[in-house]
């Protein structure tokens, strides 16, 4: 089992979700974060002083999947989340040792799509 962590552009949130559901990945957690990367800082101006904001709003997905789902999930994210411009984001795959469903305490494979 793997935990897929993906940072994508906020405006791609729905597309990525739809794209994932097409490859039958339905369970995930979403959060909004701020990230830094290659994308240039944006100038904000407030009361005559400029501030260069070098963090950008991104949406973070956390998706726990069985190993055989990793590739298609990753591809689904790339397909839907790519614009080709700096700042499209990143996908990380982290190992999961156990996975337990709270509702019934069921472990591992059977608990995860």
């Amino acid at each position, binding site marked *: 089992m793997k935990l897929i962590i993906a940072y994508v552009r906020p405006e791609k*949130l729905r597309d990525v979700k739809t794209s994932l559901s097409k490859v039958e990945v339905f369970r995930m957690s979403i959060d*909004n974060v701020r990230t830094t990367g290659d994308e240039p800082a944006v100038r904000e101006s*407030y009361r005559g002083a400029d501030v260069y904001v070098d963090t950008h709003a991104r949406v973070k997905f956390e998706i726990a999947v069985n190993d055989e789902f990793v590739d298609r999930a990753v591809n689904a994210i790339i397909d839907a989340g790519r614009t080709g411009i700096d700042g499209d984001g990143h996908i990380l795959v982290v190992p999961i040792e156990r996975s337990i469903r709270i509702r019934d305490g069921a472990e591992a494979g059977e608990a995860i799509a």
Partner: protein
Amino acid sequence: MHRCQRWLSAGLVVCVAGVAFGQDAVTAGETGLANVTDRFVVDNLWLLISTALVFIMHLGFASLESGLTQAKNTVNILFKNTAIVAIGLITYLIIGFNLMYPGEAWTVSNWLGAFSFGASPAHDGSGMTPDYAGYTYWSDFIFQAMFAATAATIVSGAVAERIKLGPFLVFSTLYVAIVYPIIGSWKWGGGWLADRGFYDFAGSTLVHSVGGWGALAGVIVLGPRIGKYLVNEEGKCQIRPLLGHSMPLAAIGVFLLWFGWFGFNGGSVLSADPGDPSDGNWYGFGGVSLVFVTTSIAAAAGIIGAMFTSWIVQAKPDLSMALNGALAGLVGITAGADVIRVEWAVVIGLIAGVVVVLSVIGLDRLRLDDPVGAISVHLVCGIWGTLAVGLFADDARMTQLDTEGVGVGTFGDQLIGVLATGAVAFPAALIFFLILRFTVGLRVSRDEELGGLDFGEHAMEAYGGFQVFPDH
């Protein structure tokens, strides 16, 4: 707002402004101290207080519009509403007032007012006395100027979240400086609509519909916000609501608008006249007291109409609809607030409340994307309210007003007013918007729209520090 046409003889001025109060009559021609009665002081004061109340409606609009749109466009909306007050007042000073109230100095008689720049009272002091009207020249100017600014501000909600700031300000300037005063002059300036017997007490048509037509034109030219109308898997079009980001702001907006409407309608009596006991039915028509009642009751009925309609249609009662209902009732009663009996005010408000909900839903079906419901509230209910005068206005009262030469308000008269306004306001707005679109461009880029106009147009955020979740 049945204001004293400045070029009328002083006798009629008194007859209109102080209609029930013969004892206040002043001797025309005399200027200076002697003819400034206490009643004049009171009437003038009420017009000024009403000005302050109409002013606060601008905060109402700013709050309502920003509450019903997304957090990422809040600075932009607040900025537009702040700028429009300024633009409205200044252009009205420079050109609008004389264009709307030309007195006898029409450029084209009864159709196009005076292009004399600036506002300045007569040089014999009469502008400060009842020789001018039931109030001073300056009170007249500032009350009318605040009104003017509201017409332009109506547009801003409908075109929100996608229009470029600069072109919008250019549009507003032209619309409030030219279109609004010209149409207004036809009735309130004593032009051809006034002659035809069209009746519009405080501006269901002259203010709200004029604003509403501009909103409709803007929405058509701009097209919907990205993501509002989607094609779903089955290839069917689907409406996806873009949630407003703050219902408290929206509620503050509507309550302030209602509050301001006491001045909008109440001040349009143009005096503190408590009500004429000698009207046809001893009912107090034409007075501030009745206007307060019909205004409040129509707003209340509008809430009830919208609440139940939305409860039935949407299964759950929608706060934003109930709030729109209050405004619908207010817009609906505005044309006839001084000539309608209270029971009919209930009916007008109720229907307006029902209509606004159905209209919001209907416009969405037509892919006309109006984030705040400005077209439904101001245009649709403005038309409804204007026609309602033809249906529900008290007959005896209208006969009486006919004698005084200030309107008959039959359904036919009203329809003509509605159509004439639409026939000028809508094309004018359309042309302005199209010219801007094909020259400097009207709509922000896709990226800017997605990222929010606050960043794109202002390089600011409205809620520094708060994280706002993207549409999920």
